[in-house]
């Protein structure tokens, strides 16, 4: 009989949120770039999602209005975050739930571990949650003798492989079907498995069904939680989120404090923005909304715990330019359009938050002054594609430039007068002004098209700024697109073929 190992032998490599130093982006990017299988998988994946997303968004005549509402709602929430958190706590408590506050990762893990132990749980089932990746909850629980089972297919794959995620949305994007087949045969003890995706999915279904039925404790993240009603929401595709939030008698949800939204009605905005931006679907297959505990109805967990996590978020909040990074709804659209991410993959970022959003969020969350995270704001060609697709309008280039300035200033403070004259700093201050102003930003993009932008020649980016320069010497980046998304958007109403007839209702 095969003994199934639920914990991988290989430990996941350290990232920005674990103890110890992480490599810089350029160091790690070199490795990823050398892996041609990875680059092929990533290329296929990002191109597919990109194309589909454009179709899903083009179908919406009011997409820009939704984006603006999403941005404004996030801004309202963040400016009054204390009020909304207190209101959320009241609402959840009124509905029979318990609210916990965690200043940092360690405190969050201790709270969650304590809840599991109080129910004598040796096993917990988990639905994908980047917040628990950030706090390294699985490793913590393992140390406490509690096995945490990841139940998303992709998360299961990478957990079994002892790896870390390379994409927020499709964490196993770097693995192909034959690699997955081998892994399942080895780790799940399945004999006779084909490499057809339905067979692979079925193997996971059978393996995890038993876990769902026996687990006493389920652990989830949250996409949103409503201050007004206490209603928490998990958006997913596979049904494992429904399983984890419905079947175990105890449910623990870990969410970053920035995930709160003001009112029930606000779901009408975010539930339109998120599915189309992330999986390019009109709606994802399953969304669960629940309010507190079952309170005797027999529907769902008898006990519900909501853990509110800070872990650096209040530092991000303090920076008036960086604050918008907390708008993020983790759709991963910015990853899929990023020419740098497409080539290096997620691992190069050494963070649970890869891609353009990771490049701004990671150094802000962990604090400036560490070589690994500090290298991330340089992992960008500043082409602006991320800003154009972001459903909550985070001006990622602006924040990137702003952070570069902060990083250089930090070095100055450490390095005396020489640092002050660092040409990179002077240039970055100027660029920061450009990106904070829409007109200047569009002008700069046009300049890039006609080859006058300092970093672009003939529309191709030959040289990346600062620390990435060495990397582009060997490899030209894709040209800045002829027509920016913004240009396209402005003209799409005027008989452009991309404004097809499949639009919703109002057309």
């Amino acid at each position, binding site marked *: 009989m095969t003994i199934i190992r639920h914990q991988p032998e290989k430990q996941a490599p350290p990232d920005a949120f674990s103890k110890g130093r992480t490599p810089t982006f350029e160091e790690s990017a070199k490795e990823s770039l050398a892996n041609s299988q990875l680059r092929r998988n990533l290329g*296929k*994946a990002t191109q597919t999602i990109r194309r589909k997303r454009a179709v899903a968004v083009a179908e919406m005549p009011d997409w820009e*209005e939704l984006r603006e*509402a999403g941005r*404004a709602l996030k*801004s*309202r929430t963040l*400016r*009054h975050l204390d009020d909304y*958190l207190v209101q959320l706590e009241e609402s959840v408590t009124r509905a029979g739930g318990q609210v*916990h*506050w965690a*200043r940092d990762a360690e405190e969050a893990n201790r709270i969650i571990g304590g809840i599991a132990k109080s129910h004598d749980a040796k096993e917990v089932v988990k639905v994908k949650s980047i917040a628990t990746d950030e706090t390294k909850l699985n490793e913590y629980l393992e140390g406490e003798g509690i096995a945490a089972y990841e139940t998303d*297919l*992709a998360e299961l794959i990478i957990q079994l492989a002892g790896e870390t995620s390379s994409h927020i949305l499709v*964490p*196993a994007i770097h693995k*192909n079907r034959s690699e997955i087949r081998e892994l399942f045969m080895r780790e799940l003890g399945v004999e006779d498995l084909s490499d057809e*995706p339905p067979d692979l*999915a079925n193997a*996971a*279904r059978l393996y*995890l*069904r038993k876990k769902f039925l026996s687990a006493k404790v389920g652990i989830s993240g949250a996409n949103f939680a409503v201050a007004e009603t206490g*209603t928490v929401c998990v958006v997913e*595709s*596979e*049904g*494992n989120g*429904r*399983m984890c939030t*419905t*079947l175990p008698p105890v449910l623990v949800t870990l969410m970053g404090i920035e995930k709160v939204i*003001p009112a*029930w009605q606000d779901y*009408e*905005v975010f*539930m*339109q923005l998120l599915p189309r931006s992330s999986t390019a*679907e*009109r*709606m994802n*297959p*399953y*969304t*669960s*909304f*629940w*309010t507190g505990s079952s309170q005797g*109805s*027999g*529907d*769902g967990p008898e006990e519900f715990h909501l853990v*509110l996590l*800070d872990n650096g978020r209040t530092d991000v*909040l*303090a920076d*008036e330019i960086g604050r918008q990074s907390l708008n993020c709804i983790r759709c991963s659209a910015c990853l899929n359009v990023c020419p740098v991410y497409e080539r290096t993959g997620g691992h190069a970022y050494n963070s649970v938050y890869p891609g353009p959003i990771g490049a701004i969020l990671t150094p802000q969350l962990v604090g400036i002054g560490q070589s690994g995270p500090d290298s991330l704001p340089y992992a960008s060609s500043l082409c602006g594609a991320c800003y154009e697709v972001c459903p909550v309008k985070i001006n990622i280039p602006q924040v990137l430039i702003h952070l570069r300035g902060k990083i250089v200033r930090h070095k100055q403070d450490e390095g005396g007068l020489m640092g002050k004259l660092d040409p990179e700093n002077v240039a970055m201050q100027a660029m920061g002004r450009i990106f904070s102003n829409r007109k200047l930003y569009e002008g700069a993009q046009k300049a890039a098209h006609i080859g006058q932008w300092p970093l672009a020649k003939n529309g191709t980016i030959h040289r990346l700024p600062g620390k990435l320069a060495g990397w582009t010497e060997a490899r030209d980046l894709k040209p800045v697109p002829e027509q920016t998304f913004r240009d396209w958007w402005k003209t799409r109403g005027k008989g452009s073929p991309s404004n097809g007839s499949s639009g919703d*209702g*109002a057309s």
Partner: protein
Amino acid sequence: MSAAREEILRRVRRSTRDVPGAEHPDDVPVERGYRKTDDTPRPEIVERFAERTAEYKAKVSRLSEADLPGAIRDALEACGVKGLVVPPGLPEAWVPDGVKVLRDGPGAQLTNDELDRSDGVLTGCALGIAQTGTIVLDAGEAQGRRALTLLPDYHLCVVREEQVVGLVPEAFAVLRDTVVGERRAVTFISGPSATSDIELNRVEGVHGPRTLEVLIVG
């Protein structure tokens, strides 16, 4: 009050010092310029719902009230459903003869194992959303607890034409009372369970019911 709570709230207040003290949350403008209602004629809305639900690989049929019991019987037979889970409040006329009925209700709840061993579940719904091809369950009449539509491998769902709304905002408006007043759980279902985790190939059926069939009654 926990020390962590106090400290986090203190940090939040310190970090938002730039926000004027007199500013109320509602002072931060939120422009809701997006579509709230769909004035497309009703028949088109229902047709769109049928089309889009089908695009998510759900089997969809449109039929009259009179044909409903026969259609249910045929659908269950075609899928070989013998042990059928029935939620409280489901019209008796919907349940065909010859299937083994597993009735769930207050005081007599089926266990998760019983649900897991069943062949399928028959429910109504709270709403349909045409814009997205979504079925909404709110744990109300003819729907039951969430586990009922989660563990069986086959879900047959009856949607009445008048339950279909046009746009997503209309759905959240209708659901408001259920959530605010009764705190019932709400589930959005848009096609059967799916994954694209393996080389981005869509595979139907991971953890939820692998087959979703929708009967639209008008």
